[in-house]
């Protein structure tokens, strides 16, 4: 039993079968061998011998290495092999002489890229599966990083590369032709290596060098150039830099390099350029240098404060020039010339703004505010503008087309807008319009009406209602006269022809004047008309405005010379006296006609003292009329015209006392307007302090005129007296409205 069991156990031992340990043991040399194949392939690729390699075999080898967990070995082998090759390349690049350096670098870079692509092809499977799970850099990026570290940042290459590139740029700036293609390849390489490589190894030093270059150059230019040619040079440099960027630098560099040029060449010298003697901004404006101005605008626009610098200088120049213009006593002598001058000035600068300053709104505003400033420096501007219009509407626009008329009127309206005292303008315009209408001297009804419409759109219905009334009166008068002659022609017979213009009181700028003594022939007709008119219109009163009329009279001089004289009513009265007398003293004339002395003197002056129109002869011969003078019918009067127009010597411009009078009338007219405004405001606000009232009144009236605070105060006082307002009992600064 015992022996049996022993033998059994022994037998079992003999039959023992080894545990099935099927460990697939890879040939330990397999990895090493496979790597050698791949390493050899990498060498061959770098040596341009790839044509003998089998891609399929290499790909499969790399795949197998990764599959059998030799990814680490493969990857580290790759790094070591590539590094070794790059170090060799670095040596060869370093040894390149002078100008060949960049060529060599570019050449080697192209080789490396090609090799890298092929290596990546072989190791594609590693890139796809091993690299992401083991936090390694993909092959392509690895190749770029190694190139950066071993070539670009190699101590013998880094500084040399930078210097070479900057030197080439510098040479190009001084006019040399460089190999832009090569340059582009190298900067492209730096960009491929990552934006930080491009920036640190090229862009930053490039910008620094550029800044100091342009700082020096601008200093040199500004010493020897005038403003216009400096700007031309700056513009050219700017364009050159932009072109450089487009040819061989990163597009993102453009903003940076242009801002360097802008700062160094423009911003740093802005004040000096603008104020440069004989060629600065003011000279450009004076000489209409559109190109230079436009260049200055576009360059200055690029830098902060640039445009405001131009604008400020332009504004102060315009104000000063305008101030001189409107206070120049020589110019004040001719109002038409004066306004034409302003218009020319406006046109000139409008054109500058539209051609050189890109129609910049802020510049237009600056121009407008400057005009507003200086036009109102002269308190006669309103009168002059009206006189200018008067001149244009009398004769200036004769033969002009409708469009041309509109252009002139629109331009004048521009000036009108700048006026603060628009009511003064209205006063004058009314006077001048009345004269034009009554003397029948307007060139065109359409032009007159167009002007009224413009004023109406600008200032409202009230402003023009009286002006329109004047036109209505003219029309009505015409109809009335036709009717008068139709009905009365039989009775009138051969007497003088009368043309009456019936003016509504209040619409016209009439002055209360004593009527003169009309010649009896005239008086008869006048009486007939009066009877006719009052017969058809009840409840009206007619007053003859003899100071405003005209007359056409026929006169026969010595040797039977016949002339038709076009004279004023006063002149007619005087001349008619000579039908019955050859010589009359001043006193006799004054007594017979009862014309006011001032008007009579003017009237006699124009009849006796104007050469070529002296139908009267004066003794003694002198320019001025004295009360002792004697007047004779000038029998020797000749003229080559049949019709002779004898103007009245009237200062077109107002004389000093007349001016005072007009001003006074304007001031008077303003009073009710100011009062009305105060009442309107107080009615809605009930209680208000003094300053607020002044502010509100000014605001309400400024479209017509700028009320004087002192006047406003006086009006308030007057309203308190008349018990429209009262002062607050507690606070004396407050006013209350009394309903």
């Amino acid at each position, binding site marked *: 039993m015992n022996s049996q069991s022993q033998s059994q156990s022994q037998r079992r031992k003999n039959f023992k079968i080894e545990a099935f340990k099927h460990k697939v043991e890879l040939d330990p040399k397999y990895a090493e061998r496979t790597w050698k194949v791949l390493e050899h392939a990498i060498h061959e690729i770098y040596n341009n011998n*790839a*044509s003998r*390699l089998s*891609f*399929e075999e290499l*790909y*499969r080898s790399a*795949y197998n290495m990764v599959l059998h967990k030799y990814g680490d070995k493969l990857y580290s082998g790759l790094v070591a092999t590539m590094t070794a090759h790059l170090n060799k390349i670095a040596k060869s690049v370093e040894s390149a002489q002078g100008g060949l350096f960049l060529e060599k670098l570019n050449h080697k870079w192209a080789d490396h890229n*090609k090799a890298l*692509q*092929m290596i990546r*092809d072989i190791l*594609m*499977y590693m890139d*796809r*599966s091993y690299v*992401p*799970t083991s936090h390694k850099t993909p092959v392509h990026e690895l190749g770029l990083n190694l190139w950066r570290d071993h070539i670009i940042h190699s101590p013998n290459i880094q500084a040399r590369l930078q210097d070479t590139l900057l030197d080439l740029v510098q040479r190009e700036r001084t006019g040399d032709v460089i190999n832009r293609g090569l340059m582009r390849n190298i900067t492209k390489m730096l960009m491929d290596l990552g934006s930080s490589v491009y920036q640190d190894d090229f862009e930053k030093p490039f910008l620094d060098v550029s800044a100091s270059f342009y700082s020096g150059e601008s200093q040199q230019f500004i010493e020897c150039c005038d403003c216009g040619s400096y700007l031309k040079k700056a513009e050219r440099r700017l364009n050159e830099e932009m072109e450089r960027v487009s040819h061989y630098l990163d597009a993102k560099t453009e903003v940076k390099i242009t801002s360097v040029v802008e700062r160094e060449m423009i911003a740093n010298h802005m004040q000096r350029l603008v104020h440069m003697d004989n060629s600065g901004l003011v000279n450009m404006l004076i000489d209409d240098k559109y190109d230079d101005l436009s260049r200055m605008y576009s360059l200055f626009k690029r830098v902060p404060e640039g445009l405001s610098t131009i604008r400020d200088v332009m504004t102060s120049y315009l104000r000063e020039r305008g101030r001189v213009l409107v206070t120049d006593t020589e110019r004040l002598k001719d109002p038409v010339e004066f306004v034409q001058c302003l218009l020319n000035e406006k046109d000139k600068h409008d054109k500058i703004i539209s051609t050189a300053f890109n129609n910049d709104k802020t510049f237009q505003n600056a121009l407008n505010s400057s005009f507003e400033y200086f036009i109102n420096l002269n308190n006669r501007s309103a009168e002059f503008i009206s006189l200018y219009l008067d001149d244009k509407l009398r004769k200036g626009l004769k033969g002009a087309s409708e469009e041309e008329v509109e252009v002139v009127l629109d331009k004048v309206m521009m000036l009108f807008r700048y006026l603060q005292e628009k009511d003064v303008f209205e006063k004058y315009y009314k006077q001048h319009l009345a004269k034009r209408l009554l003397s029948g001297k307007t060139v065109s009804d359409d032009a007159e009406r167009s002007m009224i419409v413009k004023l109406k759109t600008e200032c409202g219905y009230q402003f023009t209602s009286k002006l329109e009334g004047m036109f209505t009166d003219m029309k009505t008068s015409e109809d009335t006269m036709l009717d008068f002659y139709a009905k009365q022609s039989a009775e009138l017979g051969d007497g003088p022809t009368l043309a009456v213009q019936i003016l509504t009181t209040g619409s016209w700028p009439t002055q209360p004047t004593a009527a003169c003594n009309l010649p009896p022939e005239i008086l008869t007709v006048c009486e007939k008309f009066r009877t006719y008119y009052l017969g058809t219109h009840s409840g009206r009163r007619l007053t003859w405005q003899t100071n405003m009329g005209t007359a056409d009279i026929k006169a026969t001089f010595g040797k039977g010379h016949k002339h038709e004289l076009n004279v004023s009513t006063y002149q007619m009265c005087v001349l008619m006296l000579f039908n019955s007398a050859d010589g009359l003293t001043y006193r006799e004339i004054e007594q017979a006609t009862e014309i006011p002395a001032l008007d009579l003197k003017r009237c006699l002056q124009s009849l006796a003292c104007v050469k070529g129109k002296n139908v009267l002869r004066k003794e003694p011969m002198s320019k001025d009329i004295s009360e002792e003078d004697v007047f004779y019918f000038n029998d020797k009067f000749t003229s080559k015209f049949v019709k002779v127009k004898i103007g009245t010597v009237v200062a077109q411009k107002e004389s000093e006392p007349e001016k005072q009078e007009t001003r006074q009338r304007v001031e008077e007219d303003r009073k009710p307007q100011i009062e009305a405004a105060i009442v309107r405001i107080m009615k809605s606000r009930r209680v208000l302090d003094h300053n607020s009232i002044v502010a509100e009144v000014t605001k309400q009236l400024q479209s017509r005129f700028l009320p004087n605070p002192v006047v406003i105060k006086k009006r308030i006082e007057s309203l308190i007296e008349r018990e429209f307002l009262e002062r607050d009992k507690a606070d004396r600064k407050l006013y209350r409205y009394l309903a």
Partner: protein
Amino acid sequence: MASRDRVRFNVGGQLFETTSTTLANAGRESMLGALLDESWNPGQPEYFIDRNPACFSTLLDLLRTGALHIPSNVPEKLLYREALYYGLLDHVRGAKWGPFDGNTLRLADSVPGRAPGDGTAIRGAPDGGCCVAHGSVVHVYNWMLEERRPISLDYQQVNDVGYIDANSIVITARERLGKGDGGMAVFSAATGELRHRFRVEHGRQPKSFTAGALSLAGLDDHRIFSSCKGRLNEYGIGVWDHNTGQQVDFFYEHPGCSLGDADKLQWLPSKNCLMVATLFPRTDNCFIGLLDLRDKSIPWCWSDAGITMNLEDKRVLHAIAMEDGHSICVINQYDDLGFIDLRAGNTNSAGTGVRWSSRSKLMNQKVPYEESCYPKLATHNGQLFSCMNDSISVFSGSEHVLTSTLRRSYGGSICDFSIGGDRLFALHNEENVFDVWDSPPCPII
């Protein structure tokens, strides 16, 4: 000319003939693309490739037709391996399933899980993979549904997960007392490694916190939102930039709306607002609100305060803002859908604002199973999805008509589902199995 275009392969002894035009479909970044590139020596009479001929045949067919047909004798995993060798895996994935449509879904696979039930969340990845969170582990699957290395959180409880991109998973976790952990972090989907932890700072002091629900703003907006609960009353919604990893904003809880406990966050680009839904609050009422982060206001909110609460009442259990941004869809315990109009000002209390759909299943007014899961909602391309018990309902059109039902026979009720990478993933509660549904590629005719 024609012969020059022709390419001959000997793959594992079997001859194939094709054209370089067909091979161009593989792209330069593939093995075949590199093989024929002129930097190598092309123009050989025949290329030898030492691989499986059957798979090569299938892949060549894919390149020729763009359609994938796997013969029955080729195992799918083998084909994937070969596709990886040739660098054609993306081609295979693109041909495997078509554009997502809730009404054409077919069951693509069913993957058993390891954990004993009670999954927390499932999320679909943009590339068709997915991850399943339960307990303190997140299991990650690639689109081939092979499990990758799981993400382990050292036994912290996972609250929510989401994909920033196919390779980045963001996880929110509960803070454990005294450990100062929890919070929110990004992990690599491929390796399961921690990439970045998001911090919350209050008065420049970093604080530990419990992160709850998650939401990502969208494609071009790098913001990521999470509900946060700190121990020192830092309740609210944290906002980070997932590109920089830095906190960019914090919306502190207003009184009366519990943001720190929010169950659902959703960014509404059309309103420039974040929808916050707190549906299972501990103390307060259910609350749904839109937060405007720019001025820290709540331009719209809804609450069920004032409804007498007994179990029979309809309770809002999940909410989702509709894609048009005009309304919020909600669901109750009876699987009824309801809508709250976002355009009609502030809806006040009493829950009156919900317009329950008439499609009530009327399940005898009783909660169906003891162990049922809460229903969930999702939207995709105008379709609305809801899960209840063991099935998913698909509603289409502007009237939200029930058009399809997806149901599996086993696995218990569905505790979560997700749509991502043109696939729908449904996680079953009992067996912890998840189903993958996708739409077939476009039919030939």
